[in-house]
């Protein structure tokens, strides 16, 4: 009898048209979900780093990897047992070390591996492995083999959950028909397992991330959202009094459990053989003192050392003999069972399975991540970038068991770094929107009436170029404008740069933004790539304006108010006032020609309001009042300052309120005097805000040393 898994796959393959359609949808959804977490194609950041190219999204093959219930049950038992046995091996290697004294594992192998952590020897964590993953592959004879164990900070769970989220959107009917086991019980099981690492009643957990430059940043950010906990980087965390703390707007908040997504060697630069200055100085001191629980325990990565591999089976046999053993894949063996792909020849697939241990039971994910092997690939490192969702076939949908944990109130405790990014994200968004709108305004005017280029011997075009330069922030560095086309070109370039900065900041706080925001960012990132290739046209500028409007709307309507929101919105108001000061100064004050003033009104989305109000030709003085002083015009300087003032009051930031009041006072003076004063206040306010709220430390620097 053909196993059900095979007939399910055969049925799917028979319907090629549908599979094609699935693949297209899967591509789109993965781009929206995955890329929403890491907006790729990022520019070089202010600090010179770029997002890692290896974190590019992968593709999902729409034909799943199917497992019959019986096979899965057998694998589950084997994985459970193996995880526990490896935990016992780890406990021995760092505790009694009978494996070494008894001659099972040569100590040279451990010490030469670079992964046997000196500071872990002698430690007794509550549990060595809280999370575990194992790569399995079937040889041509159908026998399952272990390719590798992942014990340090196993990667891939987030991708497996993400792939499933996509497949559940693409093929819900087929999945229901075959009773594919759901995965929704796993995140709660993981949360519970992480909590059990700490003796504290309702422990505060954070995901310890490598930041935007880490190859697995998408997964780290996605897992933080799934777990409902903060994503923290090294600089967000600090050890004091043998405890771990999160730097937040409200000061230091204790952290009880650290779900580390970084390897052993990278978590504490004070460790004897730690690598570089990354990580949290003193973290291992806090761990040793019981000040924070670590999952997985420090040192658990030694199992991944290639040198240990030949000795692992004997080590397991010595401390915890397996009843359902799966043999390790013999080196060099490459005759693998192949699986059909949506396109191309069938190929071998490495199955990564995931498990969590909460101390009472091991939960194995009823699914996993299938990774397609290209012909020359090392099974431990598939390079094809093609994944398969893993279906465990059942008779009916299994209701997920939902574990409930006591809720932890983290409401006010937004990490300082998050507020920092939200602040800059909003400033960049406001500036990028202003540039886009001005380009759109000027472009469309010259498009509709090319004769304008010749008006006044081309002086009109020169004046437009000048305004573009000022709003693009390039007046000083790039010298005087030299023609409209050149000005449009350099503003386009500035727009690409500023939008890139906006996307980078947003990516770093992706776990604090809604999924809809992720999609808008993804779309904006595509537009930005297009602008980078050729000058933006009116239609794509319109599309970008819609994205900016969506971001502003989501920011206002879908973000919980709190200190971080106030700080982020302060960024938007400070930038808006700055933009308006630039715009009005360069038109109404310096060049009060009706044409340029009308451009300013249009670029500030105030032309209609002007016409309704004044029913006259454009006059500089009235336009100035509308753009600067009219509190009812949300685009005006006065409105921006008034809103900024409310934020400083909400933040109980008296120095900020005084500064904004200086700006409001300045508005009582003639415009040509007021505007430079307001510009100056904006700069001082921004600087004061950074000082007051983001005194985040820089990266640690290693102390040098030398003997002769």
């Amino acid at each position: 009898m053909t196993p059900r898994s095979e007939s399910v796959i055969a049925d799917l393959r028979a319907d090629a048209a549908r599979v094609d359609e699935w693949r297209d949808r899967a591509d789109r959804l993965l781009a929206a979900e995955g890329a929403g977490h890491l907006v790729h194609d990022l520019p070089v950041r202010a600090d010179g780093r770029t997002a890692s190219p290896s974190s590019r999204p992968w593709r999902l093959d729409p034909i799943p990897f199917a497992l019959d219930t019986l096979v899965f049950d057998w694998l589950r038992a084997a994985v459970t047992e193996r995880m526990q046995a490896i935990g016992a091996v780890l406990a021995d290697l760092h505790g009694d070390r009978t494996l070494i004294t008894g001659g099972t594992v040569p100590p040279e192998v451990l010490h030469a591996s670079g992964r046997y952590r000196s500071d872990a020897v002698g430690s007794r964590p509550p549990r060595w492995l809280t999370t575990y993953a194992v790569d399995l592959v079937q040889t041509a004879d159908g026998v399952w083999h272990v390719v590798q164990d992942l014990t340090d900070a196993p990667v891939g769970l987030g991708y497996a959950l993400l792939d499933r989220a996509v497949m559940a959107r693409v093929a819900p009917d087929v999945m229901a028909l075959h009773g594919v086991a759901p995965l929704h019980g796993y995140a709660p099981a993981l949360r519970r397992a992480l909590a059990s690492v700490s003796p504290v009643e309702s422990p505060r957990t954070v995901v310890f991330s490598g930041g935007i430059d880490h190859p697995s940043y998408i997964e780290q950010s996605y897992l933080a959202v799934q777990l409902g906990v903060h994503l923290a980087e090294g600089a967000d965390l600090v050890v004091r009094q043998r405890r771990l703390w999160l730097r937040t707007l409200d000061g230091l908040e204790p952290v009880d459990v650290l779900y580390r997504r970084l390897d052993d060697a990278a978590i504490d630069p004070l460790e004897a053989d730690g690598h570089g200055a990354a990580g949290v100085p003193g973290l291992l001191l806090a761990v040793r003192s019981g000040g924070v629980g670590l999952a997985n325990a420090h040192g658990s990565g030694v199992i991944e050392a290639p040198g240990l591999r030949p000795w692992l089976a004997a080590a397991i046999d010595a401390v915890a003999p397996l009843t359902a053993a799966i043999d390790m894949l013999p080196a060099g063996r490459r005759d693998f069972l192949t699986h059909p792909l949506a396109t191309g020849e069938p190929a071998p697939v490495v199955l990564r399975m995931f498990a969590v241990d909460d101390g009472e039971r091991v939960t194995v994910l009823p699914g996993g991540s299938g990774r397609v092997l290209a012909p020359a690939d090392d099974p431990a490192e598939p390079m094809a970038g093609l994944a398969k969702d893993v279906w465990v076939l059942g008779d009916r949908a299994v209701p997920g068991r939902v574990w409930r944990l006591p809720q932890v109130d983290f409401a006010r405790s937004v990490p300082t770094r998050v507020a920092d990014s939200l602040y800059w994200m909003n400033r960049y968004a406001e500036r990028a929107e202003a540039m886009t709108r001005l380009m759109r305004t000027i472009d469309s005017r010259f498009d509709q009436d090319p004769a304008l280029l010749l008006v006044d011997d081309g002086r009109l075009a020169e004046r437009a170029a000048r305004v573009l330069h000022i709003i693009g922030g390039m007046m000083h560095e790039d010298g005087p404008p030299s023609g409209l086309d050149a000005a449009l070109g350099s503003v386009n370039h500035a727009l690409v740069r500023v939008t890139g900065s906006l996307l980078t900041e947003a990516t770093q706080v992706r776990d604090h933004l809604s999924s809809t925001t992720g999609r808008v960012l993804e779309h904006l990132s595509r537009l930005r790539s297009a602008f980078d290739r050729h000058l933006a046209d009116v239609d794509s500028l319109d599309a970008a304006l819609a994205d900016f409007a969506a971001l502003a709307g989501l920011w206002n309507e879908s973000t919980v108010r709190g200190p971080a929101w106030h700080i982020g919105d302060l960024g938007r108001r400070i930038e808006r006032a700055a933009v308006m000061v630039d715009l009005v100064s360069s038109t109404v004050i310096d060049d009060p020609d009706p044409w340029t003033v009308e451009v300013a009104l249009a670029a500030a989305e105030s032309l209609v309001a002007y016409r309704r109000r004044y029913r006259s030709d454009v006059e500089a003085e009235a336009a100035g009042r509308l753009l600067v002083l009219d509190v009812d015009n949300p685009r005006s300087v006065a409105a921006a300052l008034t809103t900024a003032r409310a934020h400083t009051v909400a933040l109980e930031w008296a120095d900020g309120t005084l500064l904004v009041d200086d700006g409001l006072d300045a508005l009582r003076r003639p415009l040509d005097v007021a505007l430079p004063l307001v510009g100056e206040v904006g700069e001082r306010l921004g600087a004061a805000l950074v000082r007051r709220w983001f005194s985040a430390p820089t990266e640690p620097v290693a102390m040098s040393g030398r003997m002769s």
Partner: protein
Amino acid sequence: MSRAGGEPGTRRYRVTHRTTYSYGAEMTDGYSVTTLVPRTTPNQRVLSSTVRAVPEPDEHEERLDQFGNPIVQFGVHRPHRDLVVESVSVVELEPPVSPVDETPWEEVVAILDSMVGQDALDIRPFRATSSFTALDPGSGAAAALDDLTRRAFAPGTGIVDGARALCSAIHGGFGFDPTFTEVSTPLADVLAARRGVCQDFAHLAIAALRWLGLAARYVSGYIETEPPPGQPRLVGADASHAWCSVWTPGAGWVDLDPTNGHLPVERHVTVGWGRDYADVTPVRGVVIGPTAEQRLEVAVDMVPVDA
């Protein structure tokens, strides 16, 4: 020569080791881990040892590392432009005994291969290559190391004789040159230029001994340097020093100082040992603040004291 000690022939020293970091800006946090407290050995007694830091640390922890070296860890959590770490230790050294063990080195390797029990934990880790002693196996540096090693350890050579020959070969064949290397200079460069400092020569000897399958460890400490005849002893003219030990079945760990060509070592105060420099760096750590610049000054003073 006999400086008065508790026993005839013993020497007593006070060692002051002062490390000063100047950052040129206010740093917000500083964390340091020190291996500065000398440990007791068969011929060394530690009469007193203190380590302190300025500014006064907010956090202070003492523990033993996996090799049994005393570690003192500090955390300073307020603004500081300088950090001073100073250790003061008084130790007493027995006169050195010339070690005797004629076991052929191949036999020592065989003993190590089958070593189990506590010895497997204490001795065998020192056979593994570590970051400071690793060489690319097919490289010219590896060939040079092999040559150096085979000359000292002809087949059947006794373990102590071989170690002594290796020590002389390094002392005679390599020039002491503090300007050539830095902490991170790879061993391959030292082999190519045939120049280096004590730390490089210790790593070189360790790499050679491990090349054969022997167990060798890195020793960090101090050495008393005699002033030139007729000149007064200069305070601060003594330096941190590094040498190594090789394990022998008959005489245990045998110290050798390839920088000075000595076996056994004399007037050497042992602080600690490990697989290489990284395990026993006297002062290391990280500092957090607005600048990556730092100036480091180290002053070591080793003076004989009366009992």
